[in-house]
């Protein structure tokens, strides 16, 4: 029995050291947790940039990861609160369903890609394609994001306290993008929109939940111009 499995029999934080224990054993332990588990606090040491740490957790536990992680950390999260005390590689919280993922450092490409729900908080910067094809997740980035962020974003909210790279919100559907800084450019079919009181209350709530120090009045709202939704006969010559 691994040390982690022994600890699981007691109601104490489980410490899992990836310097000497296998990632696969961690995944097996997390996936074996029943919905009513009392083992609700986990600490993961020495991730050393490994991929797929704390992926596919479906129970409301709290997981703290002490260090930098590689690809797809906290992917498919459904209900857990996962904190990364470091940087995250590509695809952090990809396809999250619910819960909270908090990156204390920077996130690489495609943070929160295709995610359906939950809250992703990035204290630093996120690189390219943040929130690509997001489908309901809320993302708060306290720094800046890279190019093609919110590409084909369908629903949810992307809040950016800093600036953005090129082509923000390209081919956007109905996600909201709040940005306090300056977009390098807007993508096709993305435009600035008037911010309604409802939009503003969403922004204020997200800033509060993310612990972000920012004035809501500094933000502009970007959304879809809705001209790419349907085939337009005037474009027939392009095919």
């Amino acid at each position, binding site marked *: 029995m691994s040390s982690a499995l022994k600890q699981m029999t007691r109601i104490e934080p489980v410490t899992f050291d990836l310097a000497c224990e296998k990632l696969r054993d961690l995944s097996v332990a997390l996936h074996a947790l029943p919905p009513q588990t009392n083992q609700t606090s986990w600490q993961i040491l020495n991730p*050393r940039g490994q991929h797929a740490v704390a992926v596919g957790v479906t129970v409301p536990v709290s997981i703290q990861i002490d260090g930098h992680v590689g690809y797809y950390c906290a992917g498919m999260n459904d209900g857990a609160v996962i904190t990364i005390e470091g940087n995250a590689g590509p695809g952090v919280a990809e396809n999250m369903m619910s819960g909270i993922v908090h990156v204390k450092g920077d996130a690489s490409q495609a943070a929160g890609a295709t995610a359906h729900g939950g809250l992703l908080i990035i204290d630093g910067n996120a*690189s390219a394609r943040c929130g690509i094809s997001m489908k309901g997740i809320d993302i708060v980035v306290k720094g800046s994001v890279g190019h093609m962020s919110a590409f084909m974003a369908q629903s949810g909210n992307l809040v950016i306290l800093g600036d953005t790279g090129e082509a923000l919100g390209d081919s956007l559907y109905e996600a909201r993008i709040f940005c306090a800084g300056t977009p390098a450019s807007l993508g096709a079919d993305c435009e600035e929109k008037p911010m309604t009181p409802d939009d503003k209350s969403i922004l204020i709530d997200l800033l509060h939940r993310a612990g972000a120090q920012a004035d809501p009045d500094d933000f502009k709202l970007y959304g879809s111009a809705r001209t790419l939704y349907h085939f337009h006969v005037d474009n027939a010559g392009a095919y």
Partner: protein
Amino acid sequence: MCGIAGLFLKNRALEPELGAMTAAMLEVLTDRGPDSAGFAVYGDGTAGFVKVTLRAPVGFDFAALGHALQVGATVRDDHAVISVPIAREAEVRRTLQASYPTVDIVASGTRMELFKGVGLPALVSTRFGLAGMSGSHAIAHTRMATESAVTTQGAHPFSTGPDQCLVHNGSLSNHNDIRRTLIRENMRFETQNDTEVAAGFLSWKLREGAKLDEALTAALDTLDGFYTFVVGTESGFGVLRDPVACKPAVMAETDDYVAFGSEYRALVDLPGISKAKLFEPEPAKVYFWERAA
């Protein structure tokens, strides 16, 4: 997918450790490129001499070759580095081409040695004794082939000019066109590989008088496709990602070194990494470090 590891030392006290540090980084990247591997190391040079890295079929008698050409030869598995007086370089090259048809000239330069082969990166690294090498900077690559066959010739780094090498993660889409153009400029290519064309393009620019950063900037306008490049020159180390930045890249900088890894995993055992400045190189931005003379 491929893996890249690069290390440029600022602190000369670390130079004896360069090979060991690079070998460790290379092995971590095995699962990004298990089919072949290679590396270039910029070590000591001898004034008035050029190092020529040769490759020949297993069992070739490099000692006899060195004796016949009257040059010193350091054999490392199926490669050897011969040290040739600069005044004799052209003559030695002619002799190699005329009399040693099984010997390939892999690279040359005052400081660069370049080794590559097919097989798991750890095996390639061990065969050539990378961990025991010293120097100021090194560039290493693990290959998962996409654009040309799994051969020693197709492994990276590619060298198309003196002390110049390039490794690549990605694939180019206009390399045939650029190869034809460069052939008209008297550049020579050994393979049908896309990366060799990128290396040749930079060597051509350098030959025409550009600095490395200027050559990399020109590459942004000319090369079409996906790429993260790490390039080396006698005194410099550069990084360039395409504007879309499909291929991953992480860098770490301390007072002692600049390190490049396709993933952070490759950097995790470097000294002082916990205090290093970690960043992803931005798309379409030229990064370049040069060693003071």
